[in-house]
C-alpha cells in the first residue's frame, strides 16, 4: 500500500498541464513542482485521508455501509459555516475557516442524528434520509450565498469550496492538519468502541462499554475530520464512502486496521483523482470532486444493489 502511495505521489508531482522530468527539472519547472504541485498534493492527501477516516467512523457508528460525511450532510454544514465566515471577513481571516467548518460540522451532525433517531435509538434508514435532506437544503443555501457574493476574491474562495483543488496553497494546512490529527487520534483511541457500536448498542454494552459516550466521542472525531477536509478543499463526495469499503474487503472490519488504511487509501485516491483531473484534458482542469463523483456515483449504486441483496425484492 505504501508502495502504491509512492507511485501516486511521483505521478502526481510529474503530471499536469506540463509533464516534468523530476530528475532533471529546469528552474521554472522546479518552481511549479515546489510552489504549485507540492502544496496541492499535501492538501489532497490530508483531505482525502480525513474523508476516508470520517467515512469509516460514520459507517461503523451508525451501522450503515452507505454513511459518509457527504451523504450525511455534515460536509455541507461545514462548508456553509465556512462560507459565511469568508463572507463576513471578506476572505481575510483564512485561519478561521477550519474552526468555522468544525462548528458547522458539529451542528449539522447533532441535527441529523436527532432527526435520525426515534424512541428506540438511531435508525439506519431514517438517519440516511435525514442526512440527505439536510444536505440538500444546506447545499442550496451555499449556492445561494455563492451567487449573491459580489467581491471577486470572495467569489473565488467560495468556488474553491466546491471541491476544486486548483487554488490549494499552504494557508489552511496547519490549522486543518491539526483538526485532522486530533480527530484521527481520538478515533484510534476509541477503536474498541467503534468496533462494538457496529454490532449494536446492546452488544457494545455487553462488551463493557457505554454506547452513548462512545458514539458522542466518535461523532466528534468524524466532525473534526470532516471540518479539516472541507477547510482544505471544500466538498468532495464519495471518497469517504468508497475507501473504507475497499479497505474492509482487503483486511476485514477491525477499526485498528481500517482507520489507518482508510487514511492512506483516501489520501491516495484523492491525490490520484486530482492528478487525473488536471492531466487528461489540458489546459482544462477537471476539479477533483468531479472526478471522484464520476467514479463514486456508480460505486454507490453497486453498493446499494449489494445492500438490498443484489436483486429485485
Amino acid at each position, binding site marked *: 500500500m505504501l508502495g502504491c502511495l509512492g507511485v501516486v505521489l511521483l505521478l502526481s508531482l510529474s503530471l499536469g498541464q506540463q509533464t516534468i522530468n523530476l530528475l532533471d527539472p529546469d528552474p521554472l519547472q522546479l518552481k511549479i513542482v515546489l510552489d504549485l504541485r507540492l502544496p496541492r498534493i499535501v492538501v489532497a492527501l490530508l483531505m482525502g485521508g480525513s474523508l476516508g477516516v470520517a467515512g469509516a467512523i460514520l459507517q461503523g457508528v451508525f451501522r450503515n455501509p452507505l454513511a459518509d460525511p457527504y451523504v450525511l450532510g455534515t460536509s455541507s454544514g461545514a462548508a456553509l459555516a465556512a462560507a459565511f465566515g469568508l463572507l463576513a471577513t471578506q476572505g481575510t481571516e483564512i485561519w478561521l475557516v477550519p474552526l468555522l467548518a468544525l462548528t458547522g460540522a458539529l451542528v449539522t451532525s447533532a441535527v441529523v442524528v436527532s432527526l435520525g433517531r426515534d424512541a428506540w435509538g438511531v435508525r439506519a434508514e431514517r438517519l440516511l434520509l435525514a442526512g440527505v435532506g439536510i444536505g440538500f437544503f444546506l447545499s442550496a443555501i451555499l449556492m445561494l450565498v455563492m451567487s449573491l457574493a459580489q467581491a471577486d476574491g470572495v467569489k473565488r474562495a467560495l468556488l474553491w469550496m466546491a471541491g476544486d483543488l486548483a487554488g490549494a496553497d499552504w494557508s489552511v494546512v496547519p490549522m486543518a492538519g491539526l483538526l485532522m490529527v486530533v480527530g484521527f487520534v481520538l478515533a484510534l483511541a476509541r477503536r474498541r468502541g467503534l468496533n462494538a457500536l*457496529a454490532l449494536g448498542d446492546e452488544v457494545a*454494552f455487553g462488551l*463493557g462499554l457505554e454506547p452513548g459516550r462512545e458514539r458522542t466521542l466518535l461523532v466528534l472525531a468524524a466532525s473534526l475530520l470532516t471540518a479539516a477536509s472541507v477547510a482544505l478543499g471544500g466538498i468532495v463526495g464519495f471518497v469517504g464512502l468508497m475507501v473504507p469499503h475497499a479497505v474492509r474487503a482487503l483486511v476485514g*472490519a477491525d477499526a485498528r486496521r481500517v482507520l489507518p488504511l482508510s487514511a492512506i487509501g483516501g489520501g491516495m485516491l484523492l491525490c490520484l483523482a486530482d492528478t487525473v483531473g488536471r492531466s487528461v484534458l489540458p489546459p482544462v482542469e477537471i476539479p477533483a470532486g468531479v472526478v471522484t463523483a464520476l467514479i463514486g456515483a456508480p460505486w454507490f449504486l453497486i453498493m446499494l444493489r449489494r445492500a438490498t441483496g443484489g436483486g429485485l425484492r
Partner: protein
Amino acid sequence: MSSLRFDQVCFSYGNAPCVVQFSCNLAKGELVGLIGANGSGKSTLLRLGAGLLTPTMGQVELDSKPVRLWKGEERATRLGYLPQSIEAPLPFRVGELVEMGRAAARKDHLLSCREVLAAVGLEGHEQTPLSQISGGERRRAFIAMILAQGGKTLLLDEPLAGLDLRYQYELLTLLRSLCQAHNLTILLSLHDLILARNLDRLLVIRQGQLLADGLPTEILTQRLVQQTFDLEPGFQVANVL
C-alpha cells in the same frame, strides 16, 4: 454460592409493569431456561440481569454485588450478554469478533482465541467473513465472542431462534458442555418446550411473574403450559411436550 440473584425485582416501561416481584437464584454450573409467551418479559429480565436496565424496585446481584455497580471491564469479565438480534452490517471476520471479546477483558483470559473457536466448532475460521457462514455458525461466532470475554455468567436471549433442529441441538449440547467444563452459569430464553427438557432447570414466567421454577420434567405439565401460553382448555399440550 449463587452467581446471579434476582431479589424482588420489578420493572416497568413507563406505566406498564413488565416484571413483577421476580426472585430467583442461579447457582454456578447451572444451565437454566427461561420460558414464557411473547411479551411475557423474558428479554426484559435478561436485560435487567445484564445491567442494561435498572429495576424500578428490588435488586439484581452479580457475584454478590448489584450488577449496576460493576463497571465496564469488571462487568465484561464476569458477565457475557448476547441480545436476540445479532446483526453485523460491516464485514467483520470471525477472528475479529473473538478479538473484540478478548479486548473487553485484558487480563486472566479463560481461553485462547483458538480454544474459544474450537469450543464452538469454528476452528480454522478466523479469517472467514460473517457474511459467508450460516445463521447457526454466525450465532456460534457471537457466542465465541462472549466466551472470549471470560465471564462465568452468560445471558443469552433466544440463542436458538432461527436455527434448524440440528443446529439447535448442536448449540444446546455446546452450551451444556461449556457449563460443565468451565463451571459456567447460563440463562437462556427459548420457545421450544421439547428442547427445554434438556436443561437443568426452567423458569416459567407469565406477564412478568414467576409461575414455576424447577426441573423441566417435574414442572412442565399440561396445566402449566396451558396457563403460560393462555391456551384453550381443549388444546392437546401432549403434542408439543
